[in-house]
Every structure is written in structure tokens, then in C-alpha cells.
């Protein structure tokens, strides 16, 4: 562990000056000359998106602090215990055999994935963003499970909210395989079984009337960094409440043989008062991406709708008494 801390410390110093990192390590090239990002990568990490309140004044851990923090967070998140709140016990009481959230902070040793704003917090919602969030919550309150369309995109196996773009660490299956061919990069996402194909030939985005669940991605290289711009999201693709005008910019930089520094900037003036940026380190994985055929046996959807019908019957009975 000690050795790891030293390694991580050195890495942080290197990554803090990313241009320096690019000078000191040149990534290998694919057959057609692109910087090589190919392989299976994991972005599992315990580092939260937003900086926790108790770390408000601290953007980075000191290398010596990391081990204790990781131990505390992992034990707290994964401890197998009964919860006194029975609803929480039904919903959340699984030990880490069920999860695969990772056990380490990001290699940059940042205390939050968000690097801008400097406080590590998502900026305030605009008035429109608040109205939209409230409308979604109200719809959910009035119609929690009339039919499958009332349930979230996750439960309907349409989109996983962290699968990207942008790609975020999640509860499990945090695995991505990147493929590169002449003129294209493709990213296969284990959760929940999507492949994003990114043209690199400079073609324009789709016309604005064409909307896609994953948006429409276009990539180009800036030195050793793959820059991907995504627009044309649907008005149902809500990344943390974003609007269909979300403009996402992702940057992939391989900083050493086993690391991609992945950064994304969220620009959606209809939702947030200013743009914000997060960074995640992705680690080369020896695992493989397994198929996650989400609809294969989605008994849960039937179970939830039947549960809602049973609750309605019980409420009607209680009302009749």
C-alpha cells in the first residue's frame, strides 16, 4: 500500500501538469496512426462526483491519507448490516458481493470527480432547470407505476444514467471496451449494453430535428487527446436533469500504459447556471466486458407493476372500511 501511495503521489504530480505528462510519455499508435486507446477499461472508483461536505476545503488527498479514507468509505458502503428503516433494508441491504463499485479513489487523488467549479459541486440549476426537475418529480408522484412508461429509463432497460455520454462510475459493471478503426472510435459500454460509434472524419452533426438517446457524437484528435462533442440528445435523455440542448465535450488522454484521464464538460445553459467539468481516471482492466442483455429476464418490471396494483387494491380496501 505504501508503495502504491508513492506511485499515486508521483502520478498526481505528473497528471497535474497534463501537458508535461504528454511530453514525458508518448502513447503507442494504432496501425492507422491514432494514439492507442484500445482495450478494456474500468472507471470504478469510490471518489464521489461532488465533494463531500467534510472535505469542502480540500481538493486533493495527500498520498498518506488515501489508504485510511479508502478503508473507511469501502467499509461504510459495503458493510453487511440490517437497517432499522425497513424500506431501506428492502432496497439497499446487500453487501458488496452484489456491488462492484471499486475500492480506490481516482489516481489524481482528487476528493471529487468535479474539477470545475473549484468547490467540486454541480452549479445551481437555472429557474427552467428547477421547473423541469419539479415537473418530473410531480409526474412521478402522480403516476409512479401506471404502466412501464412511468418507470425510469434504467428499469426499462433503455439507458443507464451513468453509461454515457458522459461515462460515470456506477454500482457495478463499470467496464468499457474501446475499439479504433480508420476514421472511427467505438466504445462498448457493459452497463447497459450499448455501443457508441464516434466518426472522426469531420462530418457535421445530425440536423437538429434528429434526436437520439445517446446523442450524436463527433470526435477529433488534439495532439494525443481524443475530443468528442455530443449533441442532439432526446428530451428524455436526462443526464442529471439536463435538457435536450445539452452539449457535452469529452476528452480522453492516455497518460500511461494503464491509465486514461477522462474528462467531460457539461454545457447546458437551459439547466445549469454555468458549465461544469468532471474528471475520472480509467484503469486498464484484465477483465472482459460481459454481455448485459438487460431485457433478457427483466422480471423486476412485472414485479414492480404488480406491486403497484397490489398497493392500489390495499388502499381501496382501506378506504372502503
Amino acid at each position, binding site marked *: 500500500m505504501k508503495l502504491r501511495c508513492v506511485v499515486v503521489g508521483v502520478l498526481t504530480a505528473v497528471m497535474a501538469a497534463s501537458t508535461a505528462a504528454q511530453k514525458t510519455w508518448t502513447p503507442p499508435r494504432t496501425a492507422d496512426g491514432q494514439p492507442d486507446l484500445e482495450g478494456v477499461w474500468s472507471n470504478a472508483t469510490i*471518489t464521489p462526483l461532488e465533494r463531500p461536505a467534510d472535505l469542502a476545503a480540500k481538493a486533493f488527498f495527500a498520498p498518506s491519507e488515501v489508504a485510511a479514507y479508502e478503508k473507511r468509505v469501502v467499509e461504510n458502503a459495503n458493510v453487511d448490516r440490517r437497517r432499522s428503516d425497513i424500506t431501506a433494508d428492502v432496497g439497499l441491504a446487500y453487501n458488496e458481493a452484489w456491488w462492484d463499485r*471499486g475500492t480506490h479513489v481516482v489516481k489524481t487523488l482528487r476528493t471529487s470527480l468535479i474539477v470545475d467549479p473549484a468547490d467540486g459541486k454541480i452549479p445551481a440549476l437555472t429557474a427552467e432547470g428547477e421547473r423541469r426537475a419539479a415537473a418530473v418529480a410531480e409526474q412521478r408522484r402522480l403516476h409512479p407505476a401506471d404502466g412501464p412508461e412511468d418507470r425510469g429509463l434504467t428499469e426499462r432497460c433503455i439507458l443507464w444514467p451513468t453509461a454515457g455520454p458522459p461515462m460515470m462510475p456506477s454500482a*457495478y459493471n463499470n467496464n468499457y471496451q474501446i475499439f479504433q478503426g480508420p476514421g472511427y472510435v467505438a466504445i462498448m459500454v457493459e452497463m447497459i449494453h450499448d455501443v457508441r460509434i464516434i466518426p472522426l472524419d469531420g462530418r457535421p452533426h445530425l440536423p437538429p430535428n434528429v434526436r437520439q438517446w445517446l446523442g450524436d457524437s463527433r470526435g477529433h484528435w488534439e495532439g494525443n487527446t481524443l475530443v468528442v462533442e455530443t449533441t442532439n440528445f432526446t428530451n428524455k435523455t436526462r443526464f442529471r436533469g439536463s435538457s435536450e440542448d445539452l452539449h457535452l465535450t469529452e476528452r480522453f488522454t492516455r497518460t500511461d500504459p494503464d491509465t486514461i484521464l477522462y474528462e467531460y464538460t457539461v454545457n447546458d445553459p437551459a439547466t445549469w447556471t454555468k458549465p461544469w467539468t468532471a474528471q475520472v481516471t480509467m484503469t486498464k482492466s484484465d477483465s472482459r466486458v460481459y454481455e448485459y442483455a438487460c431485457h433478457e429476464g427483466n422480471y423486476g418490471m412485472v414485479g414492480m407493476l404488480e406491486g403497484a396494483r397490489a398497493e392500489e387494491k390495499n388502499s381501496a380496501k382501506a378506504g372502503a372500511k
Partner: protein
Amino acid sequence: MRSITKIGLAMGVALLAAAPVWAHHAFAAEFDGKTPVKLQGTVTKMEWINPHAWIHIDVKDKDGKVTNWMVECGTPNTLLRRGVNKNSVTPGMEIVVDGYQAKDGSNKANGRDVTFADGRKVFLGNTGTGGPGDAPEK
């Protein structure tokens, strides 16, 4: 859970360290906290399917009547990475399930705790760094 789920769905986010993340779907919408069940039975099959695996067991009541129950488990990809495979839970094994019954009253439960008859856990987690599923340090 319902309120957590609502927020999660509205915001579309997993709050990692701040709160436990939700699984593929809202267990609390499917299972009833007011009807905990403890089932001891014989495995008839395990379905290795996404988004969640299911174990089927025959449970005999005190009068000898056998009822088949379905028990919801974790996501197969992660279970496999944790070292659980098709040989881990096979027909004929005796297991004990401590969970909650489906809200619709059917013979389904979530696998809150699943143990073999001798008390060993079927699905073992490993608290601490360096456990199974933990990416090797690079």
C-alpha cells in the same frame, strides 16, 4: 427507498459515497418490507439472466406441501466476477433465504441474505481493499 429512488430517477445519478446506490431497479417497489420471509428449501434451478439472477427453490411447509419460490439475486456479470458461477448454486442444494416477499403476494422474494444450510453465505463479499472484483493496482 422510494424517495431515494425518486430523486435518483429525476436526477439520473448514482450518489456513490454519499449514499448507497440503487440497483438495476427499485427493490422497494417490488418487495414488501411488511412481509419478511425466511425460507429453507432445495434449489431447483438458478437462472443466470440479466438484469438479475434468480434462484428457484422448493420449500416444504409443516404439512409436507411443497411450494416453489423465486429469489432475486445480484447482476450475473458481477456475481461471476465475484467468483460465483454455475457450479456454485446447483439443483439439490439446501439454502436458506432471509428476505422480503413480493408486494403482489406471489411466491417471490429478494435474496437479502442467502446462506447454505450450514450457515455459509452463498454470495460472499469482501470488505477491504484487494478483494475479489477489485481492479488490480496499476
